[in-house]
């Protein structure tokens, strides 16, 4: 069986889908970055805030000054064009991956699953020979064009997309989503102003239909896209689903990214109707093939193992993943929760009776505060941020930080979120179960 898989990975197939993917991906990334700039988000998210939240292990990522931030976006945008045009392809693919990832690592507040997906695709593209067809590298830099590539290259992207959909669907298999139609019951009535369709959103039954349809769609669509017989229908569903969710929710570039990326499931034959028979690569006599090296097969295996297990890691914790968010990120949990939180921090000097309640707004933007109040690791990070400030500015020593925090999940009344008796400075973030996050009682 191993052998068969290996042969399947090495089977030469037309490079066309890969080239199309490269061109579209680069263009979308360019548009996405320009859009962030044009909306004023670069300023709001990275220049206005004075403090930032970090991902575990990436605390070293610093936000540069205003010029530096804009430069990062500029380099990323230019690199995206470089990828699309296939000019100095590998250089720009690496540059794009680095700058884009750096931007996303600067403030974990802005984490979105689709940014995570984009970063992974960028990483994959570095290793793919996607510039060996329809590229300026061939035209201007005399890089040899190829007509065939090992199937494994194309499968890398396919696997990732299947993983994204499937785990997004699996995450929806929970009682809030399926039995209570939450949080769609909150979100859909917000959209009653949409012409025609909006009228129906006032009826709760519609939220149930959307929830179940969404769950089944996510669970199945990746697989349906793989099969020859179902992929045309599946792609139609992709267009309908993402157009609809794009209209309904504030999800930015995600719908277009998915609609364009899933074109990878179509092979050259599927595109046949667009081209004259003679121009088809697979019809040509002289074919140059880019094979997957042995190391590529190994990387591909590791890649699959990683993506299979990482989204499942919440099973290692006993907490409710929607509530405590242990194992929540990097797991394709999209659109699952509507949370409202309120966190009130008290800092106490360890060596005097000085104490103070923190005005969160003097450290964080409203958006950061909103995100902080519902995510345990941010609450912990914020405690450290204020501790540092009070040690530096007010001479606090061995400061203790306590938080009164309440969170309301998916239409419920609020519950206490963090153990108020725990000094947050006595805790360091790690991957062990967070005992200081109180379990949700009413779920």
């Amino acid at each position, binding site marked *: 069986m191993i052998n068969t898989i290996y042969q399947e990975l090495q089977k030469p197939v037309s490079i066309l889908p890969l080239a199309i993917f490269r061109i579209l991906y680069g263009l979308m990334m360019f548009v996405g970055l320009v859009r962030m700039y044009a909306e004023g988000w670069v300023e709001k998210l990275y220049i206005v805030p004075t403090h930032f939240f970090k991902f575990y292990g990436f605390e070293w990522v610093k936000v540069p000054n205003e010029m530096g931030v804009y430069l990062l976006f500029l380099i990323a945008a230019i690199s995206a064009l470089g990828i699309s045009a296939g000019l100095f392809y590998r250089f720009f693919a690496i540059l794009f991956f680095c700058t884009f990832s750096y931007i996303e690592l600067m403030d974990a507040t802005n984490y979105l699953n689709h940014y995570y997906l984009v970063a992974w695709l960028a990483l994959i593209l570095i290793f793919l020979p996607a510039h060996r067809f329809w590229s300026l590298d061939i035209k201007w830099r005399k890089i040899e064009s190829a007509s065939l590539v090992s199937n494994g290259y194309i499968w890398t992207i396919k696997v990732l997309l299947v993983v994204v959909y499937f785990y997004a669907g699996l995450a929806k298999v929970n009682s809030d989503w399926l039995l209570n139609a939450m949080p769609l*019951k909150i979100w859909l009535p917000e959209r009653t102003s949409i012409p025609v369709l909006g009228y129906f959103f006032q009826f709760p039954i519609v939220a149930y239909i959307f929830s179940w349809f969404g769950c089944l769609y996510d669970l199945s669509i990746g697989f349906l896209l793989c099969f020859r017989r179902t992929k045309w229908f599946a792609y139609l569903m992709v267009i309908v689903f993402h157009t609809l969710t794009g209209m309904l929710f504030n999800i930015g570039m995600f719908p277009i990214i998915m609609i364009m990326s899933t074109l990878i499931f179509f092979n050259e034959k599927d595109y046949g109707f667009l081209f004259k028979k003679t121009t088809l690569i697979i019809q040509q006599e002289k074919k140059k093939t880019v094979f997957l090296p042995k190391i590529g097969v190994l990387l591909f295996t590791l890649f699959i193992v990683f993506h299979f297990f990482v989204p499942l890691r919440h*099973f290692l914790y006993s907490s409710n993943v929607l509530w405590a968010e242990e194992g929540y990120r990097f797991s394709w949990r999209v659109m699952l929760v509507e949370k409202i939180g309120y966190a009130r921090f008290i800092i106490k000097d360890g060596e005097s009776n000085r104490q103070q309640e923190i*005005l969160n707004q003097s450290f964080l933007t409203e958006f950061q505060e909103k995100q902080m109040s519902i995510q345990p690791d941010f609450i912990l990070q914020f405690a450290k941020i204020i501790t540092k400030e009070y040690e530096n500015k007010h001479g606090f020593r061995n400061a203790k930080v306590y938080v009164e925090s309440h969170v309301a999940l998916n239409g419920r009344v609020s519950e206490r979120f963090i153990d108020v008796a725990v000094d947050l400075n006595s805790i360091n973030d790690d991957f062990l179960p967070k005992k200081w996050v109180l379990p949700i009682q*009413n779920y």
Partner: protein
Amino acid sequence: MNYFNRIFSFLFLATLISCGSDDTNNTNTPDAGGGEVVDDCDFSAILPDVLTNYADNVIKPNYADLEAKSTQLVTTHTSFITDKNEENLTALKTAVTALWLSYQKAAHHDFGPAETSFLVSINNFPLDTVAYNDQLNTGNIDITNPNDYDLGFAVLDKLLFEKTTAETLIALENDNASAYLSAVIEDIQNKVQATHQAWFVNGYDTDFKNNTGNGAGSSFSQLVNSINKNYELIKREKLGIPSGVLTLGFTYPDRLEGFHAGISKELLSTSIESSLAFFNEGLDDLVTTSAKTKNGQPLTLEIQEGYATAIAAINNLDNDIANQIKENSSVVVAAYNETVKNLVNLKTDMPSVLCIAITYVDNPSDSD
């Protein structure tokens, strides 16, 4: 046949079979009373009536009163300019106090036209004394920026109430002071009139009643957001900062609203009592409709009791809060703490059970 396809078909089938029976996220065993059914977020049965009630029976009289009081202010000011005597000054001061108290009730619905006309800026406090002194000394009166703290009641507080009557009369003979006074009163009058007119002459009330959604910017969400915003202001500006809770125990009694006029307590009481009254004009019914309970009783009751406790603690304060803060701020801090407790109910529970996202500003981002 493609090998991957075979593996994937297997996975796909396995998933379909397990779908529905396997609850991946519900790893916690529900407590004894758990499994409360989340309701339908459907308030359409009473929402139109609630909105109409707020527009016609709360906001309309509030703004009518505010405009009447601001007209009275302008009248007394005109008399005062004609004849700067003690009697006219007293009348002017009475008019200021009346308007100021009236504004406390209108502050809970600071959205729509109120936002457009920057009505909230007439009560910007504490006063930016540097900007204040600067304008008084130079006579370059510029109070056009609603984000500045050199306009509105805070200026009137200092100009009219800081000194004795005799001293004030002398001070107001000064052209700069006189011009500052006129500018501030005119500014207040303009903002009040603009808000009132936009609401009930130019038809915002109809828009408000017809906007029956629950999305950002809907009337429903504006009610919930604005009562919250003002409650936070009460907590932070009127209690927290003066009492030193938020400033390492250093107290700032002079940052109290109405410090010179000596009406801080009255403004504060009016503010929180009218917040409860505002809640009770329909938000209470909406919360009741959600049928949610907290601490074993209906959430509506929990909120009303939270208000009652906070109000009792505030009413328990000395009439001279500034002095109380100076002598022993712990009673004021206690009132602050009671006020905060109810903020949790208002800020997390109420929007959650009403299925409304708290948004003071647009998210500077997408979501997923």
